[in-house]
């Protein structure tokens, strides 16, 4: 369910699996307003209403993600639920990698035509780490 906060306009995404059938609180990632939410098979049973709450409440479930009206992400600890992560430092962008987990060369970063030998990365072919 999409919860658009009337106070700050932030769009809170109450993602389908945890929130499909849900009765409890959630919290706007933009202005930290707590909302009482009741959802059955994906549809709100009543409009979310502001309510008192604390971050420690057992019936509090944070949104999976939130963004501003112009689509800037609003995230962070205590704002949205963490993503399933493969490492501590996941950040969702192509990660330039030159050395793999055992320290050897691997062609894991963008190249320019000058970086190529035929179809291969020059630095891998030559065995020298690029500048």
């Amino acid at each position: 369910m999409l919860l658009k906060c009337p106070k700050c306009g932030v769009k809170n995404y109450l993602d389908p699996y945890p929130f499909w059938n849900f009765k409890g609180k959630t919290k706007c990632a933009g202005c930290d307003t707590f909302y009482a939410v009741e959802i059955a098979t994906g549809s709100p049973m009543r409009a979310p209403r502001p309510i008192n709450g604390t971050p420690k409440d057992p019936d509090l479930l944070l949104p999976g993600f939130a963004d501003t009206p112009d689509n800037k992400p609003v995230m962070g600890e205590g704002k949205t639920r963490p993503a399933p992560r493969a490492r501590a430092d996941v950040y969702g962008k192509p990660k330039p990698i030159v050395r793999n987990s055992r320290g050897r060369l691997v062609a894991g970063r963008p190249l320019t035509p000058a970086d190529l030998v035929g179809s291969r990365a020059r630095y891998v072919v030559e065995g020298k780490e690029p500048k």
Partner: protein
Amino acid sequence: MANPEPLKGGRRGRPPWPASPPPTSDEVYGNLAEQAREYPKFLESLVHPDKAFNKPEALDRIRVLDCSTGMAIGHWASSMLAELGAEVIQVEPPGGDPLRQLTPFGRKEYMLKDAQRGEPVGLHFLHEMRNKLAITLNLEKKEGRDVLKKLATQVDVVIENASPGQWDKWRIGYRQLSKLNPRLVYCWVGQRGQWGPLKDKPGMRDPVAQCASGFVHGTGDPKEFGGRPTRSGMWVADHVGGTAAAMGIVAALIHRERTSGKGQFIEATAAEGIIRILDYDWVWHGMDGSIRPRYGNWDLAINIYAVNPCKDGYMMVGGGHDRLWYRIWKTVGDEVPQAEEEIIADTNLRNISERLPHTRQVKTYTLLCEWLKDNTRAEAERKLVRQEVASGGVMAIHEVAEYPHFKYRKQVAEFDDQLYGKVLVASSPNLAEKVPARLKWVGRPVGYDNDEVYRRLLGFTRGDFDRLGRQGVI
């Protein structure tokens, strides 16, 4: 509240299969223009399984002795070969393979009895006993092993799954049998391997291999969604490993005929079958130490490509690349314009790979469910298929069994077996113009073919049968 039963229904109130007859050819193609009808009808005439018995079999010169017991991987491998035409002789210990006794939740009433002896057999075992001959042989006795040595000279393939080195110690391993029959293809199957540090670790049935290969850690809802590692409902690692074993066996036969004239030693394990096909897990780990997390019914590497809840169950929608992405949102936008507008306005979602991070998947699927929540599986599918978007509901077993497309293609078919009567089975997916797989019989009771096989291959006399029977050898 009582817990729901994991087996639902029962014959009461449920019509016998099929609840509705399969569609006729006219219903399927009748409304199509000649041009649109031509290719599917050509294909149908080319590969329809009803014509399988007019056609040759790919492996019908091959004889396979499957000595695997108590484990599904070997049975799976040999039933793949049996469907493609090989004569497979399933060797069981006297009394039968312990897997014959398996039945869901111990419910004996769900076992089938054959018409001749009334001997109960579990459906799980029976489903992989197709096209095979059943003989018994006690390999723990020396006399039994002597019989096996004779059989090994008469066959092309032997499959076994004894403890690592057991057959070698018994002097019926690859090293010994290949001397008796240099053309023999010998395949050992197991969960983790017959050599290497884990070779003696016990455990012979799935999900042992699922746990040891990284499969279970990656399946199920992520911890962040309240989920835990989850095994496959099926013994899936045995199926994958068994298929790999069958592939190796046919490859070895090709090499034998074409080049060497000799057989060879093959090893296939359930865990390594899964490891081979575990997507990008290893390369990703090698790049930067990533450990693949669970991602529930979503996909780490494609968006949209997921199963989400809908009005009457769970619905799959898939379309990662741009053309389908916009068609999906157009379909959604017809009913929930706000959802489509949100997606179109977000520049972060314009590029195919930039849609992949978790936060963007959350946004995608939350908005998609604004539409799905008011659509049943059938409604959603109808609307999306109009746009050529791959989509469909999660189907329960009775829906699979009754799905018209499957019934029309005989994917699910009732087989009238001489011994077990009418049995609903999943047919082999290997259709072909000339060498299709096929089903000849569903299965056999314990030792049903002893007489035929031992006489034909080893010239056993009445006296031999008496003696070996008394000694508990067969």
